[in-house]
């Protein structure tokens, strides 16, 4: 029963959702939608709880770098505390958010630019025809998308437009169509209970 009930729930709810939309009755399942959103919203603390328990364990066992786990826990506590106590979108929380989260998040994201630089120099090789085609097309697009490309030669922006409009559109469309079939089949398998990995057993 531990598996049958969830499988039945998935099947019934999924079929209702499919039929509601295809028969034009999507308004009729508004209650179900509301249940979905509300129940997912109330599960929002899941990630934080496992994060907290993981880092508490690190601190308790004095694993390497446990001091930083304390920093993480304190930050989580402070930001949550101030955010909940402050009214929605309140000035204190906004201050914390725009002083720390926005600039630091952006900086961490920008580290990748440096890695690209070193990888471009040390690892991107035209080791075979595939890689050669890829690198050439990539460099044309980079020049075509930067204003300097047009200054050097109008070829770059024309070629970039062509690459994006013709080969890229066709190939990415084919890939998107493939992904479309893939996600549809995955959804069908979940509805039918063929895919059960989320129930804690593998598909086998």
């Amino acid at each position, binding site marked *: 029963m531990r598996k049958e009930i969830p499988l039945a729930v998935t099947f019934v709810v999924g079929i209702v959702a499919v039929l509601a939309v*295809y028969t034009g009755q999507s308004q009729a399942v508004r209650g179900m939608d509301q249940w979905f959103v509300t129940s997912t919203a109330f599960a929002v603390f899941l990630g934080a709880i496992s994060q907290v328990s993981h880092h508490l364990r690190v601190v308790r066992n004095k694993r390497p770098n446990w001091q930083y786990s304390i920093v993480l826990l304190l930050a989580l506590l402070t930001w949550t505390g101030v955010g909940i106590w402050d009214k929605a979108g309140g000035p204190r929380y906004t201050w914390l958010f725009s002083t720390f989260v926005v600039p630091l998040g952006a900086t961490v994201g920008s580290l*990748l630019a440096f890695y690209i630089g070193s*990888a471009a120099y040390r*690892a991107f090789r035209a080791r075979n025809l595939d*890689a050669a085609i890829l690198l050439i097309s990539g460099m044309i697009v980079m020049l075509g998308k930067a204003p300097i490309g047009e200054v050097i030669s109008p070829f770059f922006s024309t070629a970039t437009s062509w690459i994006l409009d013709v080969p890229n559109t066709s190939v990415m469309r084919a890939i998107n169509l493939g992904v479309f079939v893939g996600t549809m*089949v995955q959804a*069908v*398998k979940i509805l039918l209970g063929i895919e059960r990995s989320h129930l804690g057993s593998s598909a086998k």
Partner: protein
Amino acid sequence: MPLIVAGKTVQFLIVVALLLSALVMIPRIRSGRHVPEIRRLPAMDAIDEAVGRATEMGKPIVYSPGTPERIDDAQTFASLGILSHVAKQAAKYDCDLIVTCNGAWLHPLLDEVVRQAYISEGKQDSYRPDSVRFLAENLSAYASGVLGILNREGAAVNMMIGAWWAQSLILAEGGFHTGAIQIGATAHTHQIAFFVTACDYCLIGEEIYAAGAYIGREPVLVGTLLIQDYGKLVMAAVILLGVILAAFDKQQALIDLIRK
């Protein structure tokens, strides 16, 4: 009043067709009545060669299954299938295998796959529990952890197979510098290019699923692959028909039909 909303009839038929094909095909494959041929992929053939080289050099294979965000990421399942094959080969030739891992939930899955592989080769004694290593949840910490392993242990083979994000670049460069044979695979289009230019062998996009099905021969995966292939063939046929009709300016009838 029509049962199906105008403009959604064909879409509804697609859903019905998929439901039926899943109900029919997967049991057929499971019972062994219909086992399709799956084409070989050069990157998969390269695994055996890579394991051979690692054995010869006496250096380890480092396998990293990506940094999936969710447990139900299909790429991770494909990666587990491939890992099982790699682990069997490593067990057979007594080659060192190090599996890196960034999610606490992923660790037991990887461990189980590797252990089973060693048992199936009758080498449970040479299985070492520390061959699957949980490095860090945090992505940049994980990436530097893998770099550390690649350098310290002098990896002979660096396999990066699974759901990769921006860290793909860091590992591919690190592996390139240790001189390891590199095999990369991911379905994320924005990361494939880095693998193509920095790896010796590379699986592009959906090839990772095919590789997983090819190696594991697991009926659900094979069946899924078969249904998807039929789906793509039907789409290709429709597009071809559309292009032919367009040559005679008659494609509108087909478009109207599809939009029914």
